[in-house]
């Protein structure tokens, strides 16, 4: 992974005017709308609700889920790094810069700040493992435009839920961190829509499949979040395991 890329982000193409003008039906928005039922499940999930009312267990649920988030985000970075390696910056600067902007965005949870330098310390839930394999595969086997498109649900769910659900006080830090993805959602959606409107090679059915799969991984991650809590509570029955220092 090339961490030097953090400092290289510049000259990202701004397509935002395109959507705001409303002149083009957004393929990205259509994909989002077709998954709204999943988003509603996330929005009303116990994980989000308990953050909103500040009852979520920081030890039994939040911390472990942050570790799963970090685990997945490391693999997103690996995937983006792989995609960047296959793009010639001089020949496709806009594509390169879009990937680079995403790569940098996924340092939102600064690994150094979290005392981890790679995905090595972590073990995944089955959903995280499936997600990681999927994202790395998409990056290595398909054109980067599909990775850019496929990552939109990951970013949009987390940023939109911070707009739709008021998470203040104790868990405001989560809300602030995830709202920061909002800009990259707009950039990626407009980038993909522009790509399509310019007539560049893009298989919409294939892209929709990838998008839907990513959406389902994300949904499951939120819905399974409290399963961790059940495990912790069961094991905490004796207090034996929680801490022995």
């Amino acid at each position, binding site marked *: 992974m090339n961490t030097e890329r953090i400092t290289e982000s510049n000259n990202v193409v701004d397509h935002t005017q395109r959507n705001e003008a409303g002149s083009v039906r957004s393929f990205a928005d259509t994909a989002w709308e077709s998954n709204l039922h999943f988003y509603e499940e996330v929005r009303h999930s116990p994980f989000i609700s308990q953050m909103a009312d*500040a*009852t*979520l*267990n*920081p*030890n*039994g649920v*939040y*911390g*472990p889920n*942050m*570790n*799963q988030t970090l*685990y997945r985000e490391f693999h997103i970075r690996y995937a983006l790094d792989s995609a960047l390696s296959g793009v010639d910056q001089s020949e496709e600067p806009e594509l390169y810069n879009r990937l680079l902007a995403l790569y940098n965005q996924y340092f939102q949870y600064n690994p*150094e*700040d*979290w*005392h*981890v*330098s*790679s*995905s*090595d*310390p*972590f*073990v*995944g*839930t089955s959903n995280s493992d499936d997600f990681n394999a999927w994202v790395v595969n998409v990056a290595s086997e398909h054109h980067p435009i599909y990775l850019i498109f496929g990552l939109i649900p990951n970013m949009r769910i987390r940023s939109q839920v911070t707009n739709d659900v008021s998470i203040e006080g*104790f*868990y405001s*830090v*989560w809300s602030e*961190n995830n709202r920061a993805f909002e800009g990259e959602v707009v950039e990626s959606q407009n980038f993909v829509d522009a790509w399509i409107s310019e007539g560049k090679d893009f298989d919409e059915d294939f892209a929709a499949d990838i998008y839907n799969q990513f959406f389902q991984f994300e949904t499951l991650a939120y819905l399974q979040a409290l399963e*961790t809590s059940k*495990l*912790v509570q069961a*094991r*905490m029955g004796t*207090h*034996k*395991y*929680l*801490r*022995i*220092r």
Partner: protein
Amino acid sequence: MFYNNITGRILRRRSASFFSTEPPEGSFFRDAWEANQDYYEQTLQTAFIQGIGDNTLSPDDYSKLIIIDIYYCFRAVENLKTARAKVPSSEEVLQALFDGLISGYEEYLQFLSDTWYIIRKDGIVPTPNFQDYSDFEENTATNEDPIYTLVAYIPCYYLWYNLAESLKPNYDSTLYKDWIDGNSDPTPGYDIGNFIEEWKNDGKPWDEDKALALYRQSMTHEFTAFDEAVS
């Protein structure tokens, strides 16, 4: 808390009521704790501990300390095994005590694997303080008699217990109940303290000044760990 059944039987055969009770007045355990009240008081005032008490500790800051503490626990298993390997076979109780400590850490790490999804220390980047703390305990385990490794680990057990005790009045109002619950057992510290007293009473090699210096060094690292946990 951290003894397996076999270890517990060995210890209790030796003295049914000796272990798991607070070491007596005048013991090294009590004297060392008294001599380090300054660090205890300072640790109580850290934003981390205060934040657990008044429920203002950021869940991110909490999680980050847990991650880095996991690094410490992995290193602790290695260090205790190093010290354990130096214990002569004639010291059956000391062997059992080390075995209990090691299995306790291993059980905790297994719990973390199942719940916090962390299974190895590779890729965890300790702060300089945590690195130094673990290196110090490794150095103690490698270069000192095993009894001093026990001394170096007392603050790790007993400071956390006392911090948790101090927070019990806030139990109902904090989301960090798990942390208080998980540190509510003083017996690991007591067991080490009582063993040290027996060791001394048997006239075995013991340097009180050295022990106090090692204990204080651990307390220094413990305080710094909490102090640096909230930026």
